[in-house]
């Protein structure tokens, strides 16, 4: 990509005591792109994110937002960032509106109109004047998103944003983030250990393990076109498919073949005319979990469910 990155992480390292928590991590994030940040628990996701927003100081290296360093130019760079660190912790004893008013006062030039606009955007207009302590987790999450969007950031950073949300809530949140990324051209960086969630949400995935970035992949590249065919008798099916030149691997009760969709009717015809009984033909996607296990060497798989 020749486009200038919005966020540049350069050789970031963090040492606490004698332990190297983050080792020389570099990563670029681009406009309109949602990047997932994946890693087992304790891999250093949260530490990395805290260094990116100035909550922790890196031992070495720097983070640049739109060309300005978070470490040496904090005020200028952080105003372009919207942050949700873990569950958005709000002032529970105040109303949602007062919470937003509070945060808006800490930025330059956010009008009351802008607050109302954001409230509309996240669909909170009916409950905004109630105390946050009466909100459900989903509502708090929306309020968290509202506070992160108030100042129209160029970069949105989220740490475990769907922790504790129900499936409907997760889905809504996902759609919303994708909308913000594509319509406003915001770069989004999401850390999570929910693999399936990251897979659905992100364009790109960065994998961290033991404080080191071990892989960056585009999600679309991950989806090699692959089909699962189950036909009886098995030997006949194998003979026909490999005879036709498809790369075949055994999987479950049948076989996986790597091919494009236009070759499927032909393959089915061949199997039928060879006298095989077809039980199933379906597209097969290797799940992110399989790939994640492959990348991290399998040993330290993070839970696929919330903590």
């Amino acid at each position, binding site marked *: 990509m020749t486009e200038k990155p919005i966020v540049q992480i350069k050789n970031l390292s963090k040492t606490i005591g004698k332990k190297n928590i983050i080792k020389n991590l570099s990563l670029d994030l681009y406009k309109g792109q949602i990047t997932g940040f994946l890693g087992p628990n304790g891999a250093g996701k949260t530490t990395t994110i*805290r260094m990116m*927003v100035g*909550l922790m100081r890196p031992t070495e290296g720097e983070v640049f937002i739109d060309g300005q360093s978070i470490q040496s130019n904090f005020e200028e760079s952080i105003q372009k960032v919207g942050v949700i660190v873990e569950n958005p*912790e709000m002032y*529970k004893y105040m109303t949602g509106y*007062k919470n937003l008013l*509070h945060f808006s006062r800490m930025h330059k030039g956010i009008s009351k109109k802008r607050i109302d606009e954001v409230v509309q955007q996240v669909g909170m207009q009916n409950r905004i004047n109630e105390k946050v302590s009466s909100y459900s987790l989903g509502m708090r999450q929306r309020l968290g998103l509202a506070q992160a969007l108030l100042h129209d950031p160029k970069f949105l950073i989220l740490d475990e944003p769907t922790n504790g949300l129900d499936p409907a809530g997760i889905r809504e949140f996902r759609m919303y983030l994708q909308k913000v990324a594509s319509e406003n051209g915001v770069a989004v960086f999401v850390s999570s250990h929910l693999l399936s969630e990251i897979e659905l949400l992100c364009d790109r995935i960065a994998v961290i393990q033991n404080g080191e970035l071990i892989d960056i992949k585009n999600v679309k590249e991950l989806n090699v076109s692959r089909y699962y065919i189950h036909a009886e008798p098995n030997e006949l099916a194998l003979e026909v498919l490999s005879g036709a030149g498809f790369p075949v691997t055994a999987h479950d009760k049948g076989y996986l073949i790597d091919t494009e969709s236009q070759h499927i009717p032909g393959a089915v015809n061949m199997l039928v005319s060879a006298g095989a009984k077809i039980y199933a033909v379906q597209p097969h996607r290797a799940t992110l979990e399989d790939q994640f296990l492959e990348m991290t060497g399998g040993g330290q798989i993070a839970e696929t469910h919330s903590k």
Partner: protein
Amino acid sequence: MLKLIQNEWMKLWSKKTSWIMAALLVVILFASMGITKWVNSSMMVNEEETWQEVAANQQANAEAMLMDPNLSGQQKDYYEGQAAIAEYRLANEVPAFEYTSMQQQVIDAHAMLSLVTLFTVIIAAGIVASEFSQGTIKMLLTRPVKRWKILTSKYITTMIYAILLSILTIAVSALAGLIFFGIGDGTFLVWNGSEVVEGSYWIEALKMAALSFASVWIIGTFAFMLGTVFRSSSLAIGLSIFLMFTGIQAVYLLANYEVVKYYLFTHTDLTQFYTGFMPVPDITMTMSLIVLAVYFLIFMAVSYWTFSRRDVTA
């Protein structure tokens, strides 16, 4: 900065504790004055002391104190003034305020500022610590505002709250005094060093309150530092209050050692220079102000240093 203070002020008054403490202060002031009136009226059976007798006693007492060869210069000035005022009253038939008058209650209102110290400690200890315990600190520090500005806004807000409660103390004392005792006869007199002149009891009340506020201020600042450093309001409140009580006692233990002059609690009560009651007689107002300022700077430096450098992991 104004917007940040506005924010802190909004958060402060959104918490029930701030209201409860202000209400408690009003209730306690009314109650204590009510009790004073009750105790006084039930003792009225005894023969009343006339103001002349009181003044004569004061004069005798002050003169007796002046005989003491160990008296410091400050105390000597004070008792000379007392004796002169009492003499003037008797010579010119100018009675003092009765104890059971609104005016005298206003003058004595500063004694109740110890309550304000307690409430200020609670606010000061929690204003930073609660952000950490609620996890909102992450939201607060990822804004385009430098950390020292956030800490400053919190400190200023705490002090505004303390000042507000102090003013409330005087105002409520006046109101309760008016309701329970009414305006009494008498004249407030001051010794200006060479002669006895009439003074305003309101100015006297404000002066004493301002002097008492020094202790609210420095102990509040101490609690603020502890809350910032330990991020736990209960620890900060407990430690501050514990030190507030034991610290003053320690003055008497240390009284014979030179080190007492540099000890914080020797200097927290600035009213001592106007009441003659000095545990360590050979200190001066200037010295106290310098010692308080040095402690203040240390407390502030520790707070700012830890707050602006800390890695937020909460």
